[in-house]
């Protein structure tokens, strides 16, 4: 038998200074690795006072749920008090807890970026944010709403601001900025490898690039690759940026970032991501056909012309999944399917609202057709199927499975 005295701590600072957090296997592994390799690691809890808090590791975002316990959990350690240190038979209750935090993997909450970056579009001739001029950014989201309540002078919104404001891990934020084609202007370390990006603190201003401007730059890049006979798998960055700057007044800091988005820059050489460039140019063409669909064959030939002979082979509608809807010939009285621009990025992020929008656009969907429009609101296919099960109804007929709206 061994007996110890149990006491409350005499330190007044201890109450409320402990919390319990359940560890899913992946988080537990991270902690173990950190302890084994003896490297301090830092996670962060992020959120404005009105948000639900999230926990971010360097690569993932977890929603934090609070689970209330009806029992009390006492945190017991050796006493901090020096007087009691020598008495080996006393342990103290440091805190009494009634709650466990439960992290649940979630998608990064990057959608707020769209709002934060509104009116900061970087476009040809609009290199500085201009307070009076209406920017094109809202084209995608259906205009209006942008007229009133604009502050007359805007503070710059920097990378550091985004890191503090947005509920996303560093990797997810960087990816989100890339995917949204946001330039980091006048920051340091613009072209660095992912490994160094994390340790680098930079305060560059965030400016989303105008889609049309981006298409222009990419088309010019393709032209220069051909006219200067540079290989697309190893094109000297400086040669391309100089040409763009001299002939078209496109600043090197912009074209360099564009190249980094669409490929890898290694040792001054650009390894072009052919699919990425071809896809973006395709999007650029498609964007014009929002309300006024274009026959698929016409679209494909326009696309092939735009990318040129060298990359013609790489065009494929598969690249544009989640950005268009195709109207079959039977419904459109046209010999080939019609395509219209329908980007999933402009749909609501709340699952209920998104499904409502999707079923307004079309009353029934094939599984393959609807899934590209769900990719950005779920973490994996399992969650996607859960969403489909919850918000849609599956009907099977001779053509296969269709999803329709759930009856109210």
């Amino acid at each position, binding site marked *: 038998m061994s007996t110890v005295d149990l006491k409350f701590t005499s330190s007044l600072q201890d109450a409320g200074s402990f919390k319990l957090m359940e560890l899913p296997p992946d988080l537990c592994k991270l902690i173990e690795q950190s302890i084994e390799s003896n490297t301090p690691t830092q996670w962060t809890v992020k959120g404005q006072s009105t948000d639900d808090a999230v926990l971010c590791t360097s690569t993932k975002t977890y929603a934090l749920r609070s689970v209330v316990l009806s029992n009390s959990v006492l945190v017991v350690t*050796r006493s901090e008090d020096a007087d009691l240190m020598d008495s080996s038979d006393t342990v103290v209750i440091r805190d009494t807890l009634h709650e466990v935090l439960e992290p649940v993997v979630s998608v990064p909450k990057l959608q707020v970026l769209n709002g934060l970056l509104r009116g900061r579009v970087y476009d040809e001739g609009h290199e500085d944010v201009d307070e009076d001029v209406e920017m094109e950014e809202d084209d995608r989201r259906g205009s209006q709403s942008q007229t009133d309540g604009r502050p007359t002078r805007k503070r710059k919104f920097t990378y550091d601001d985004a890191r503090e404001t947005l509920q996303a891990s560093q990797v997810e934020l960087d990816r989100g900025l890339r995917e949204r084609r946001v330039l980091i202007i006048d920051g340091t370390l613009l072209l660095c490898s992912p490994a160094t990006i994390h340790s680098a603190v930079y305060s560059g201003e965030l400016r989303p690039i105008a889609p049309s401007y981006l298409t222009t730059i990419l088309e010019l890049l393709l032209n220069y690759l051909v006219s200067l006979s540079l290989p697309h798998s190893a094109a000297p960055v400086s040669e391309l940026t100089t040409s763009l700057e001299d002939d078209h007044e496109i600043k090197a800091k912009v074209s360099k970032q564009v190249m980094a988005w669409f490929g890898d820059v290694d040792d001054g050489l650009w390894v072009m991501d052919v699919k990425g460039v071809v896809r973006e140019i395709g999007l650029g063409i498609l964007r014009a056909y929002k309300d006024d669909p274009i026959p698929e064959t016409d679209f494909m030939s326009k696309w092939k012309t735009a990318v040129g002979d060298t990359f013609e082979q790489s065009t494929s509608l598969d690249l544009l999944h989640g950005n268009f809807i195709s109207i079959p010939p039977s419904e459109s009285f046209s010999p080939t399917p019609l395509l219209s621009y329908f980007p999933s990025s402009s749909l609501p992020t709340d699952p209920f609202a998104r499904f409502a929008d999707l079923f307004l656009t079309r009353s029934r969907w094939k599984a393959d057709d609807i899934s590209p429009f769900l990719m950005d609101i779920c973490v994996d296919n399992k969650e996607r199927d859960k969403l489909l099960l919850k918000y849609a109804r599956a009907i099977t007929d001779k053509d296969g499975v269709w999803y329709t709206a759930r009856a109210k």
Partner: protein
Amino acid sequence: MIIPININASSSSTGPLPPQLAQFGTDELVLIEMQGTLEVEGSKAGQAVGKLTVDEKTKKPTLRIGHHLLEGKLVNLPKPLAVLHRPPRPLSNDDDETDIGGERDWSGAQKTQVEWDVVAVVRKKMVFSKRPMPMVASIPVAPGGSVVKKAG
């Protein structure tokens, strides 16, 4: 707002627990779960709660609080728990008190300097799930010489 959570930071250790206790948690920290709460009249600070005994053979923990005895057991947690601790602010910070409120982030919210450390990862806990039993037999003889007898 960003609240850092430090893992494997040099934490303020309070020293190892007796081995009998450490087997219910980690070397330095044990979680004890019980029904209800411990109520204390007046200030809790420094108050004695009771005696915690671990039987060396059966490994059964018992907790005696006053005339009540609680029987506990070892429970393995389905998922490990991280114990987070917010270290008290270092004394040197007191001078900078005026700085607080000066720093604001982009949205205008105040920057806080709160940090949490992961001080332990526990995979088991000591649970007292039963009601306390009155300890009649072992009550020592009162000064007057009379012994309270068990009814019935």
